[in-house]
């Protein structure tokens, strides 16, 4: 074969080439068509270019993630922004796309006409907050529904509605007095006041570390059913469909139930559940250092009934043994199963320096697979945060039908993926486990998950007899 020639394709060849390329990536190309395709690619540079575009399209399509539009738009399926990097390994800083730069520039112009709605200059002011961390999409809205996408360094003062509309979106606000408020995914926070930290959590969850506030000028966190008065402490709050949860990790917070006009002091190590008609004060559970679920026991109390928690559908990996529930999510890098317990249970287990996680799994399809595991914190009143992940090394191979494999992984083989600035100490919080399988969706099956302490120095993988 000689050098690639530089001819122009005819329009009809171009259409035909589209068809051949579609067939190629659907695995429907016949031998004859393969010869024709190769001939086109050899002769025409634009055919090669189109071929590479189809390759890119295949890879981008394989990164698709199913997402629901906001409640207002109903249940239609939309595409979220497709990122090019996996989230299971070290997340790289997200580059600002041109679209985002334009959005921020537009925000600046818009802000000038909105009377201080968004301030880009920094003044010494205890009520002024600067965005010190932004994950995913973070926006503010004014009363006219105008939306501005925010980035790190933008400042907020009053009359704003701050939203983290998508799964994975989050924002951290730092006030001049050192107070930090973290707004977690799918949350809405409203601030109307100019002279006081007076925040209304309409939806979702936040956590905060609050510096000492002046007397009669305490920080207020409002929800639909209660108001928390904060002098200086660490706490988290979550607004659900039917109740609010607020947990205190340091200091004391006074919580007042609006309807009952009743107040309760929530102390360090306690959390309060606030429903329409009552408030229940409870201790934050101390999770056990060891735990096991072999799936062979009768269905657990909390798993009885509809199989739904908070209205969300939960299923266990198909083919798994027993009744333990797991949440299935389809994401860019594979199917994820979260083995967890509902919010009222005591979590799974705490991790310690000598913890090791064990589980049995099976891949029935004879394909190369890779499994990664992420553990994430579980605290009342606080959304889960990923803390450790295990992605490399021994958890890959070729699937063999009907063969269960046992894996035991010591904590040191897990890689921390959070930045460590807000991590609870080891042993303090319960941990959930998330399994992900790549390449084999949905053939991952899980049986018997346990957490033990000591006795395992390195990752051990062996077939189960």
């Amino acid at each position, binding site marked *: 074969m000689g050098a690639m020639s530089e001819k122009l394709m005819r329009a009809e060849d171009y259409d035909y080439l589209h068809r051949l390329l579609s067939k190629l990536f659907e695995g429907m190309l016949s031998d004859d068509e393969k010869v024709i395709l190769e001939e086109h690619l050899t002769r025409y540079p634009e055919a090669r270019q189109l071929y590479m575009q189809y390759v890119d399209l295949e*890879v981008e399509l394989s990164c698709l993630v199913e997402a629901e539009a906001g409640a207002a738009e109903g249940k239609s399926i939309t595409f979220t922004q497709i990122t090019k*990097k996996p989230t299971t390994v070290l997340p790289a800083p997200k580059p600002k796309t041109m679209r985002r730069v334009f959005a921020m520039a537009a925000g600046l112009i818009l802000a000038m006409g909105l009377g201080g709605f968004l301030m880009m200059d920094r003044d010494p002011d205890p009520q002024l907050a600067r965005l010190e961390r932004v994950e995913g999409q973070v926006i503010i809205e004014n009363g006219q529904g105008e939306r501005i996408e925010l980035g790190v360094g933008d400042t907020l003062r009053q009359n704003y509605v701050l939203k983290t509309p998508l799964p994975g979106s989050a924002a951290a606000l730092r006030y001049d007095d050192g107070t930090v408020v973290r707004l977690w995914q799918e949350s809405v926070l409203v601030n109307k006041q100019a002279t006081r930290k007076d925040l209304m959590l309409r939806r979702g969850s936040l956590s905060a570390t609050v510096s000492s506030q002046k007397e009669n000028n305490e920080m207020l966190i409002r929800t639909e059913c209660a108001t928390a008065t904060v002098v200086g402490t660490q706490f988290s709050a979550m607004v659900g469909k039917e109740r609010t949860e607020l947990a205190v990790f340091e200091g004391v917070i006074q919580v007042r139930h609006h309807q009952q006009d009743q107040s309760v002091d929530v102390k360090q190590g306690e959390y309060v559940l606030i429903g329409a008609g009552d408030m229940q004060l409870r201790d934050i559970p101390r999770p056990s250092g060891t735990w096991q679920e072999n799936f062979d026991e009768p269905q657990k109390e909390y798993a009885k009934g509809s199989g739904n928690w908070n209205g969300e559908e939960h299923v266990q990996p198909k083919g798994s043994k027993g009744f333990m529930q797991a949440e299935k999510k389809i994401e860019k890098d594979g199917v994820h199963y979260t083995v967890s317990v509902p919010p009222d249970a005591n979590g799974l287990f705490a991790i310690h320096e000598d913890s090791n996680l064990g589980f049995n799994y099976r891949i029935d399809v004879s394909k*190369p697979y890779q499994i990664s595991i992420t553990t994430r914190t579980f605290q009342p009143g606080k959304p889960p945060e990923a803390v450790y992940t295990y992605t490399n090394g021994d958890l890959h191979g070729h699937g063999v039908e009907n063969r269960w494999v046992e894996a035991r992984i010591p904590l040191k083989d897990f890689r921390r993926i959070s930045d460590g600035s807000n991590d609870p100490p080891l042993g303090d919080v319960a941990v959930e486990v998330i399994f992900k399988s790549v390449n084999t969706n949905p053939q991952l099956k899980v049986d018997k998950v346990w957490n033990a302490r000591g006795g395992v120095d390195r990752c051990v993988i062996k077939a189960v007899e």
Partner: protein
Amino acid sequence: MAERVEKDEFAALYSRVHLDLLRYILTLLPDRHQAEDVLQETARLLWQKFDQFDQERPFLPWARKFAYFEVLKHRKKYAIRTKYFADELIETIATERIEKDEMFEAGREALNDCMASMDEKSSELLIDRFSKGIALKELAARQNRTANSLYLVMHRIRQKLIRCVNNKLESQGWAL
């Protein structure tokens, strides 16, 4: 401890380029499953040779060389030469892929916009096919239609997306 740090460094670098590598490999070996096999093998090799990587230099070109040779090895091992493209064509495509990297990057940005503006039916079909990984034949059976008619629908979606991307690229001044 040193190995742990090295592992973290490798994971960070690899996570940034792994989709670029997959695109590159799939360009040379247009079969998704085989491309993923080669990618996995390439990742293993990159980790083995990571101590030879010069941290002052970019990671992707270094990684691409391994991917290229892994593709050749795979072709030889499984005699794919007879199935997918001659060696000379592979070489040309590999070179052009790198030369036009910037344009393809712009194309992928445009593709995000094009996908966002797709109708709901097409979106649902793509989710079923790619996100849920349902095979074309199975999807067709579920929809009570032939695989060939569903292929035509998929073909039209692909073609529409590519044309949308090209329109956007042309409006940005790229010569196509």
